[in-house]
């Protein structure tokens, strides 16, 4: 094959969204037609694809090797109204996609807390959102995808066509190949608004019991927990549940343009934030107090915009810089239902440590899917951001890991920046099955990342 003349590699220092563990790779933006040649020339350190770099840890880094961004355009997006599906190149972001499909009356099947992720990344991380209990993760909505394999060929995959490789690619962290494009189901919507009901809870018992009843009546459900409150307020939080609003839910003014979608940008954090950053016990406690007090004790039928309900942080550019140059980690785990004791123990440990930032999410997951490395499973998932430079954080994370793994839970690879190989082996009992499928299409280990090296994912 001819060497692509257009590919310019630049040595680039990369981190994940958490800004920790930097490493240098050869980075290039490559057209899908030139990818095969780049992959062939990759050398011993291999290749990984990178989208918008929103994995928190080292999933889209490949020190000493190649990191490829695949070029793709929103103009290639095809919306099939009859089947309610969208076909898009893997490089398209949910942000761009929403601008196209919301005015046409569709919403993405799953959105995480940010819309700045790509379709390829959404599949490779098998992302989940506030509707996991109702709709599952992103992977179950994918009808088909095309995957560039290590040998330079492209393979069509679907849940019925080569299902093993399809499910190894869903949640496979880019280690089966580079996703080129995908077709996935979208949700028909009447309006671009959500109807939200809010319940403020005074302690963890109340929060967990409120969450345990009534989730099934709503498509979206998520809670925030104050992980700094102690004593009687331990585990206090707010539960928001929502559904896509119907036109009849809107007032006359909103109903004029029911599908109007205009995400706003408020500000961008400057590139240099002096250590130790702005997130500390004082600012976090203040934030938590105000955040809790602004919410009504119980309110139904509030109308919120898509960005307001799903992506509140996206209005502030580069908010990850607020933690200062040492960055932060996002600790996310799931423990099965019936192991609320482990969830409670973890929350206690985080509260005792005084290390939690205000960014905390608690959610009940629904059913797992068939992908061996998919993170969600029926149970409770807690997500908490903590400044990486904090004293005692490493020790806290290890003690949390022990509780989580003992309870039969696991950690989310797209967030991980700290666990060890043993933790993944324990948390993902089907890891060896995934390795077998993966090795069959990549015996020479072309696909590698800092994540795969750190956690010995390839075995």
């Amino acid at each position, binding site marked *: 094959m001819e060497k692509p003349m257009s590919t310019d590699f630049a040595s680039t220092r990369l981190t994940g969204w*958490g800004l*920790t563990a930097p490493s240098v790779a050869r980075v290039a933006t490559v057209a899908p037609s030139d990818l095969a040649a780049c992959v062939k020339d990759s050398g011993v350190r291999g290749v990984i694809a990178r989208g918008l770099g929103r994995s928190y840890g080292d999933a889209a880094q490949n020190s000493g090797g190649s990191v490829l961004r695949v070029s793709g355009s929103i103009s290639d997006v095809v919306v099939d109204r009859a089947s309610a599906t969208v076909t898009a190149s893997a490089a398209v972001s949910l942000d761009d996609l929403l601008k196209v499909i919301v005015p046409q009356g569709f919403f993405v099947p799953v959105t995480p807390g940010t819309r700045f992720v790509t379709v390829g990344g959404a599949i490779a991380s098998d992302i989940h959102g506030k509707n996991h209990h109702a709709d599952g993760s992103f992977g179950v909505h994918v009808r088909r995808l095309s995957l560039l394999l290590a040998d330079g060929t492209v393979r069509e995959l679907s849940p019925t066509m080569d299902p093993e490789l399809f499910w190894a690619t869903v949640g496979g962290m880019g280690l089966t190949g580079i996703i080129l494009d995908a077709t996935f189901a979208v949700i028909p919507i009447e309006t671009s608004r959500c109807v939200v009901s809010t319940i403020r809870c005074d302690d963890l018992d109340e929060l967990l019991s409120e969450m345990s009843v009534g989730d099934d009546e709503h498509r979206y459900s998520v809670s925030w927990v104050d992980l700094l409150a102690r004593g009687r307020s331990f585990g206090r939080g707010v539960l928001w549940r929502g559904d896509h609003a119907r036109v009849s839910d809107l007032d006359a003014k909103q109903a004029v343009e029911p599908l109007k979608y205009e995400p706003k940008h408020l500000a961008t954090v400057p590139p240099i934030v002096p250590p130790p950053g702005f997130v500390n016990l004082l600012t976090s406690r203040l934030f938590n107090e105000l955040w809790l007090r602004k919410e009504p004790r119980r309110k139904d039928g509030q109308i919120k915009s898509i960005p307001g309900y799903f992506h509140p942080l996206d209005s502030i550019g580069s908010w990850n810089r607020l933690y200062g140059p040492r960055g932060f980690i996002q600790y996310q785990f799931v423990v099965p239902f019936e192991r609320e004791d482990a969830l409670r123990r973890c929350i206690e440990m985080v509260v005792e440590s005084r290390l939690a930032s205000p960014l905390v999410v608690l959610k009940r997951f629904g059913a797992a899917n068939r992908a061996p490395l998919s993170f969600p499973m029926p149970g409770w998932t807690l997500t908490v951001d903590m400044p990486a430079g904090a004293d005692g954080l490493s020790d806290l994370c290890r003690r949390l890991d022990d509780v989580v793994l003992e309870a039969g839970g696991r950690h989310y690879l797209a967030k991980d920046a700290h666990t060890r190989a043993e933790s993944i082996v324990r948390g993902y009992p089907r890891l060896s099955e995934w390795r077998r499928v993966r090795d069959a299409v990549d015996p020479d280990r072309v696909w590698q990342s800092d994540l795969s090296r750190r956690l010995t994912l390839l075995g």
Partner: protein
Amino acid sequence: MQNAFGETQNIVVLGGMSEIGLAIARRLITPSTKSVVLACRRPDEASTQVASLRRDGVDVRAVAFDAADTDSHEAFMDGIRRDHGDPDVVILAFGQLGDQTRFDEDPASAVKVAHVNYTGAVSISLHVARQLRRQGHGRLVVLSSVAGERVRKPNFVYGSTKAGLDGFAQGLSDSLEGSGARVLIVRPGFVHSAMTTGMKAAPFATTPDAVAEVTVRGLKSGRRIVWAPGILRWVFTVLRHLPGPVWRRMPVG
């Protein structure tokens, strides 16, 4: 690979019998650590050192390495990469003091010291740097000395090798800029250790563990040069500019 806390998986100590090297390795070991290699001339005599670092789940072993045998250095680094994967931190801790009182009569013994401390260090550092550059991450810690900051009469052969090594390491550090690999230069003062037993301690004398603490802090904060103890930076800012007649009469050491 290092994790979000800067904790490292694979550690290599060049000069595996060095008390400072061992103290740094000891402080770098965390539950994330997979391997520690103690590279020394006679690995079969390093069982005490190996045992002192042993932890659950950490592969600690002594491996043959001769700083003076520069022809063997390439194969040595290939072996490290093959057996342990990417080295995250390599600590260059070997060095000989020699006997300054004998050097006038026996220049060949001075050449030996210079060969190990400077030539050997240059050789292995360049092989390490090549590996770190290839892997796009990793740290080389170079044990320099304040003895090289302004070379003194009582140990001027040793001091001059450290002066050379320090300058080399600064240049190497600059040359690695942007590669993902980095160099940390450690400049300890007088360290109470086997190498200095029986010698009169200089002011601001320190211990291997104190040097290790400063080193690990330097690695965390991403510094390029650290002094142990830190005050020596200011002491030497003055000493460096003393007129020769005053310098020669300094009572230190």
